[in-house]
């Protein structure tokens, strides 16, 4: 067994970093940058360690387990009432790694932020802490705690460092997007909130400890009644149709690193929540409601893909493609079979890295051109071959090209789905084809063709950006070519999930 201190450090380090940054004077921008880069690197290393040190042959249970009692024997709480219980299983481990990768990338990409970069990184680290905390928590209270921590900095991150855009038919101000994102996400957590209350009350154990609650067998009717709360509550964060609109608008307005984290890890929290709270806690409820989720997920997949084909803004397109891809995650979860859920978790990882890469790329062109309208660009490849290369790589991953991570994940999802809902799988694969349509549409529109002289001032990506992109790309390839390290960990846990056959 490994020490749980490593895991708790994933939350502690960013929180301490945020607190430490408060003390740095505003003007010392480089100190902030270097400090954050070092923190990010440390977290990345830590995440790698946690992921690779997770032992496969132990039946997929929780490792790196640690428990610090936090609030107990008081009020309605009994022993271990609320404890800082941490541990990762085979599902959380890849998510921890994902967070490490994306936050490292995000921190590096944010190097060029000049405006109050101290504040930016404080909020950034709080966000990262929240994400790590959610993935690591084995306590219902702290799960929700960190879940909200992850949402909390989003408003300022978007509203202060984001950008407003004007489109032919409407305008998206950053304040609007930030507000919508925050309000929608917090609204969704209302349902989780109530669900948690119900679960706690029903179990009557006086504790929020998840493992204790997992051991309790909830009445079937209760499960059916409460599961939708978790499903929709977490689903909104996962971009569940029709509660997805916060996501594309949020992307459009967010600064690069925030978009990366937002699509890269934040949306994963939702799907992760469905597993942790929904499936694990209320398996019978999950079994009962999953056909409904399958319908919604299919709508997600197809709807997102269709929407994406009509977008002119890079970020909108990627945003809607995220909706579509997160739909695949939900689809995988809805199968309730090992391969499908495996695929869903793989897709979470894959989409996280891939979309982070997307946004990193969009950021590098937007920072120079101050527009993201793909119709205005043309022949970018001649000026920015690296940019196009990485963008293309991410695009191909999202298309589901083999040898890239997207394929492994989508394939599992489709296989899993096909077993139970062939029609949904067929529609999903059809949407994967639409993905090719919009990715290539963008490609041929903006990257190829005669170079538009208006953009002669554009420069190739900086070395820092290339490095970041390479990091992300490396993981796309790693998972695409050799998925075993991921699949071994995930499947070992998934096969033991209750209700998953």
């Amino acid at each position: 067994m490994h020490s749980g201190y490593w895991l708790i450090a994933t939350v502690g380090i960013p929180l301490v970093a945020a607190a430490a940054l408060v003390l740095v004077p505003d003007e010392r921008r480089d100190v902030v940058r270097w400090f954050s880069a070092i923190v990010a690197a440390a977290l990345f290393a830590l995440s790698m360690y946690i992921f690779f040190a997770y032992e496969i042959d132990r039946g997929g249970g929780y490792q790196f387990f640690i428990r610090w009692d936090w609030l107990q024997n008081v009020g309605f709480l009994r022993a271990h009432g609320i404890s800082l219980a941490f541990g990762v299983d085979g599902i959380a481990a890849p998510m921890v790694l994902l967070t490490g990768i994306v936050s490292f990338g995000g921190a590096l990409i944010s190097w060029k932020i000049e405006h109050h970069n101290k504040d930016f990184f404080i909020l950034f680290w709080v966000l990262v802490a929240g994400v790590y905390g959610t993935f690591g928590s084995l306590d219902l209270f702290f799960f929700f705690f960190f879940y909200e921590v992850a949402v909390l900095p989003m408003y300022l991150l978007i509203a202060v460092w984001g950008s407003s855009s004007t489109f032919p038919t409407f305008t998206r101000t950053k304040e609007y997007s930030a507000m919508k994102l925050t309000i929608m996400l917090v609204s969704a957590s209302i349902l989780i909130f109530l669900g948690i209350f119900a679960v706690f009350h029903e179990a009557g154990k006086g504790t929020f400890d998840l493992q204790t609650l997992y051991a309790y067998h909830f009445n079937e009717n209760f499960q059916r009644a409460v599961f939708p709360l978790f499903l929709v509550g977490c689903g909104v964060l996962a971009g569940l149709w029709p509660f997805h609109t916060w996501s594309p608008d949020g992307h459009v307005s967010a600064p690069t690193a925030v978009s990366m984290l937002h699509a890269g890890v934040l949306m994963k929290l939702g799907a992760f929540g469905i597993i942790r709270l929904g499936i694990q806690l209320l398996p019978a409820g999950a079994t009962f409601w999953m056909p409904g989720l399958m319908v919604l997920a299919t709508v997600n997949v197809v709807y997102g893909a269709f929407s994406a084909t009509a977008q002119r803004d890079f970020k909108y397109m990627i945003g809607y493609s995220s909706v579509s891809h997160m739909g695949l995650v939900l689809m995988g979860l809805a199968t309730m079979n090992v391969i499908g859920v495996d695929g869903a978790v793989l897709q979470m990882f894959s989409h996280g890295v891939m979309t982070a890469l997307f946004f990193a790329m969009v950021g590098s062109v937007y920072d120079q051109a101050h527009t993201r309208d793909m119709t205005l660009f043309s022949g970018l490849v001649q000026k920015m071959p690296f940019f196009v290369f990485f963008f293309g790589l991410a695009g191909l991953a999202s298309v589901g090209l083999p040898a890239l991570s997207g394929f492994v994940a989508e394939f599992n999802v489709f296989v899993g789905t096909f077993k139970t809902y062939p029609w949904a799988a067929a529609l999903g694969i059809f949407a994967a084809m639409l993905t090719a349509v919009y990715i290539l549409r963008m490609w041929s529109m903006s990257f190829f063709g005669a170079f538009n002289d208006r953009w002669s001032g554009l420069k190739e990506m900086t070395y820092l950006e290339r490095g970041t992109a390479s990091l992300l790309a490396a993981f796309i390839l790693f998972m695409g070519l050799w998925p075993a390290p991921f699949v071994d960990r995930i499947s070992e846990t998934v096969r033991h999930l209750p209700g998953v056959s």
Partner: protein
Amino acid sequence: MNLNFDYTLFIPEFMLAGLAAIVVALDLFAPQVRKSWLSYVAAAGLAVTAVVSLSWVNKDSTFARIYAVDNYTTYFRVLFMGTAAVICLASARLVEDKLRHPGEYYGLIILSTVGAIGMAAARELMTAYLSLELLSFSLYILVSFAKFDSRSNEAGLKYLLLGAFSSAMFLYGLSLIYGVTGSTYYSGISAALSAGTHGFSFALLMALVLILAGLGFKVAAVPFHMWTPDAYEGAPIAITAYLSTTSKAAGFALLLRLFGGAFQVVHNDWSWIIAGLAAASMLLGNLVALQQHNIKRLMAYSSIGQIGYLLMGVAGLSHNTASALVLHLTGYMVTNLALFVVIIAWYNLTGKEEITDFRGMRERAPLLAGALAGALFSLAGLPLFAGFVTKFILFQAATEQGYYWLAGIGVVTSVISLYYYLMVMKEAFVTAPAEGETHRLRVPYVMQGLTVALMLGVFYVGLYPQQLFSAIDNATRFLFV
């Protein structure tokens, strides 16, 4: 009957009375002393008294069964004195700039604290009522303390007239209770009610309604809340802070003691009323707050909303909910104080109190802006800050009593509240400062210290409330004897 007439129980109250006298005397007889020193003296005195009052921890004694000094009282003693100390410190600059008679100002704050403590400690109706009036009278005066500000006068008049009106209602209710049970002791009432003289039930109902109206007015529960926004807006800003903290908390201290001690046996007769008030408060407070432009009015409606959350704990009154309620109350007070310290500091520096006037706070006073953000997040119930934990526990306690629908309204309105808190934050962080107002502002060290200390308090409640919650749990145990 063997009654205990131990006057040592009142040492903290006597100290406070003495302190008030000292402050007034200092103002009167030493005019050359800088007036801000008065606030330090008052705050120091309050702090010392708070420490002294700690010596009654875990002692359960009453004065003639009228005035209990148990953990509950001790808790609120410390809480109220702490709050008063903060208010005194925070008002220093304001009083110097805008108000006259600083001695009386601080003296009244201190005396009002006595009233508030009395409300928490009283186990008898008359005492409770008189304590309430002591607090109220002080507040009437404090609200209209800005004599030359017609808004302050107006606020004072409204508060006073409506306060008198509603205290008459309250009294009528008390008189009926007295008629129904023949006692003014909580224990006597409880005993009479559990003896089950059901013929009285309609009078009892009427009495409960009227008492709730009176206390509802005190804590500003809808529909008895109408004075709140006006009084908040008109009052000197530090008094607004005081109104939103001690005044409310004292109301709840009384409510808990009264309903826990006297009316718990007829829980079914009133719990739904409080639930209704809670729902109405949460909804109206948070909805109307959406439309506000003045920060004080906004805070007024926000506090109405908060009252709704707290009432939720009263509706399903039990030991657990009471603990949760007091925990939330504490978190709310600390947070609100932090927020108001920021607002006061900003007001002192800029003289403005519209929400749009907060623009550029991040540039001009980063510390204040940071605290503002933290406090607003806390009020909205987001984690890392006090509001999340306390609200979570409060709502959980309420749902344990079956009030899922209330908790539902509670969380929905929390989200609504997040919207207007974020609008404030938007001005502070996103909007650029106006032309020519870009220079850094120098926040006095006292205010800086207060801000930091209160924010640490917010984090303490939010991040590790075990001791606090245990203490509260110990305190609320005495409610139901």
